[in-house]
């Protein structure tokens, strides 16, 4: 029996490889769980087209180890075919001239029409498509345990003050108000939503995207840091160093009421068998409704010597196909990068996310997330991380933090 299957497989493989000896080497850090399974869908899709998938996973640091490996590979002259990348990193590599031109596929498939401009800004360089966005996450979300809120008679907060009052009520009841993991990027993720709520969209644009020193030292910035201090008062003593999924677990288990985190957190809730609207709530950080701070995982295609252009094209087309976009994002908790994908398979929170993404894109309220490298370069982003995390950990007060962030941004540029 086994022999027969092996023979059949061998025959299939042989015929596939005879059709096209092409292969894509993919560097990524989706090494477990749902994402790996979703990536497998892409792999099989490509195999159906006769293109082999050489997997090159490098976990760690949310992609930072992978980025180091990428530098070594590019310097050595054998870059991978496609690399998972975020935001400004893609543009940095495009500036180096390392990325391949995908315009042929883009025009044929009509991507310009269905990908919002704010998102396209990271997938295109000098008018040329250089990468294929896989998903769109956004960071200004709050996740809440509905049972805890119901028991305490708290309604879903719509303004910042209501939010603070709600957290106070939870704390008084003896539970943890805000589940948080004390890592620099998590504090920055919270900061995204808080900054948007404290200062509004124009402030966000001026401070984080334009890096205007006036905006960076404005009263809204002080207000943002002050709000971070409020939040700091609502986290438990053990928050330092905690992984984000463990913080989500606290909300899932009912130990904590709220978590401010990007919508990859949704996957944890779904995996635990919870239902949006019944067991958990998802809503935008109060004060930031109507805006979306997004980040998008993309597969950047590395130019190399152009020998793999066909395979890269096919990979990009597969990634951008509505069926893959739907299948992948249902699992990942994010929304598709194209606005014309049906939301039929998504859960309630996913549907809400897709609707908000589309309306924010239409009204010009789609902003790149600072915390995830879509507002400014890596050096500036990390400089902001330093200040945000130092302030959150109590090293200085809000006023000093504002001064620090101005300095830090200046040095980092």
């Amino acid at each position: 029996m086994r022999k027969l299957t092996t023979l059949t497989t061998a025959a299939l493989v042989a015929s596939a490889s005879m059709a096209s000896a092409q292969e894509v080497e993919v560097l990524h850090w989706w090494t477990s769980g749902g994402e790996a399974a979703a990536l497998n869908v892409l792999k099989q899709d490509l195999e159906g087209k006769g293109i082999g998938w050489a997997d090159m996973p490098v976990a760690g640091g949310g992609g930072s180890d992978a980025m180091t490996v990428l530098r070594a590979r590019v310097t050595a002259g054998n870059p991978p075919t496609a690399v998972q990348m975020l935001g400004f990193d893609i543009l940095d590599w495009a500036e180096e001239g390392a990325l391949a031109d995908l315009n042929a596929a883009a025009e044929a498939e009509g991507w310009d029409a269905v990908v919002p401009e704010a998102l396209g800004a990271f997938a295109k360089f000098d008018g040329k498509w250089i990468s294929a966005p896989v998903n769109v996450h956004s960071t200004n979300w709050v996740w809440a345990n509905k049972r805890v809120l119901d028991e305490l008679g708290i309604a879903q907060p719509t303004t910042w003050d209501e939010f603070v009052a709600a957290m106070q009520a939870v704390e008084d009841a003896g539970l943890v108000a805000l589940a948080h993991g004390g890592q620099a990027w998590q504090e920055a993720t919270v900061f995204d939503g808080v900054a948007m709520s404290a200062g509004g969209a124009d402030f966000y644009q001026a401070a984080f995207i334009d890096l205007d020193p006036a905006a960076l030292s404005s009263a809204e910035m002080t207000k943002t840091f002050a709000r971070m201090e409020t939040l700091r008062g609502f986290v438990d003593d053990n928050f330092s160093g905690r992984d984000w999924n463990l913080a989500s677990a606290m909300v899932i288990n009912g130990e904590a009421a709220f978590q401010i985190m990007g919508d990859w957190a949704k996957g944890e809730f779904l995996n635990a068998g919870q239902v949006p609207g019944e067991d958990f709530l998802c809503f935008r950080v109060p004060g930031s409704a109507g805006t979306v701070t997004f980040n998008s995982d993309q597969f950047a295609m590395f130019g190399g010597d152009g020998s793999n252009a066909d395979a890269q094209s096919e990979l990009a087309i597969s990634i951008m196909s509505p069926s893959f976009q739907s299948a992948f994002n249902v699992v990942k908790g994010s929304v598709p990068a194209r606005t014309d994908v049906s939301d039929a398979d998504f859960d309630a929170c996913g549907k809400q996310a897709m609707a908000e993404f589309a309306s924010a894109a239409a009204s010009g309220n789609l902003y790149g997330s600072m915390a995830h490298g879509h507002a400014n370069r890596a050096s500036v982003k990390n400089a902001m991380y330093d200040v945000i995390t130092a302030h959150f950990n109590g090293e200085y007060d809000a006023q000093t933090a504002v001064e620090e962030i101005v300095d830090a941004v200046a040095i980092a540029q």
Partner: protein
Amino acid sequence: MAQEYARADLKTRLQIIIPKLVISPSLALILVFVYGFIIFTFYLSFTDSRMLPSYGWVGFENYDKLFHLRHWSIAVKNLALFSVLYISICTVIGLWLAIFLDQKIRGEGALRPIYLYPMALSFIVTGTAWKWFLDPGIGLEATMHLWGWESFTFNWIKDRNYAIYTIVLAAVWQTSGFVMAMFLAGLRGIDNEILKAAQMDGASNFQLYRRIIIPQLRPAFLSAFVILSHLAIKSYDLIIALTGGGPGRATEVPATFMYSYTFTRNQMGIGASSAVIMLMTIAAIMIPYLYAELREKK
């Protein structure tokens, strides 16, 4: 006769050339891949390199930025604190354990591998175990609470001011056994005749150790110092596994700083300048040691 002389000449000449030939590949490799790269890094520190090496000259700007970074002073302070504690505690523990083990202990064969094995493990391996152990929520503190000792606290790893000591703890755990092995070897090499003579003169055990044995261990102390300082400077995996540099930036050291600025933050110029400072510090410590060590041979 003349032919024999000529042959002897050739042979002796060969005997002079061959050793140099034998060592030259290693020398070449080291010159290129170590010193060549150091020079490259030195050059990079004066350029505007960001994500990849670039060659626009910016003079001392990177160093200027470096010394203005709070982050860097924290890293340097941490390294100083960590190195002093790590090297001294490892040496003390290593020496004591070696002295104890040297006392004709039964079961030495079983104890020695137990003391040595932590060195075999990488921190990707033990990092998670230590992180658990040190975490107040699930580790030692929680277990103590479970066993009834409610007031026990051990949350150093979460505390900005104490986190660095947890790093010392894990580092000592990993290497003190190796230091013990070095001292044990040194102890075993001490001539018993001298000890017996001193004993006959009425010296107590304490005096024996203080006057004869420990001074004779001087080479072992120096070797331990070299190995330990090299490990202290290169400590990267350990810190990333345990605290990731946190809480905040409280446990950053120059090695993690250099990595993050070069690779994660796309500021290779600053990363290179921090590397140069690191190398200069290493040179400042090691060159005097090497000079003293190698000079004695003459």
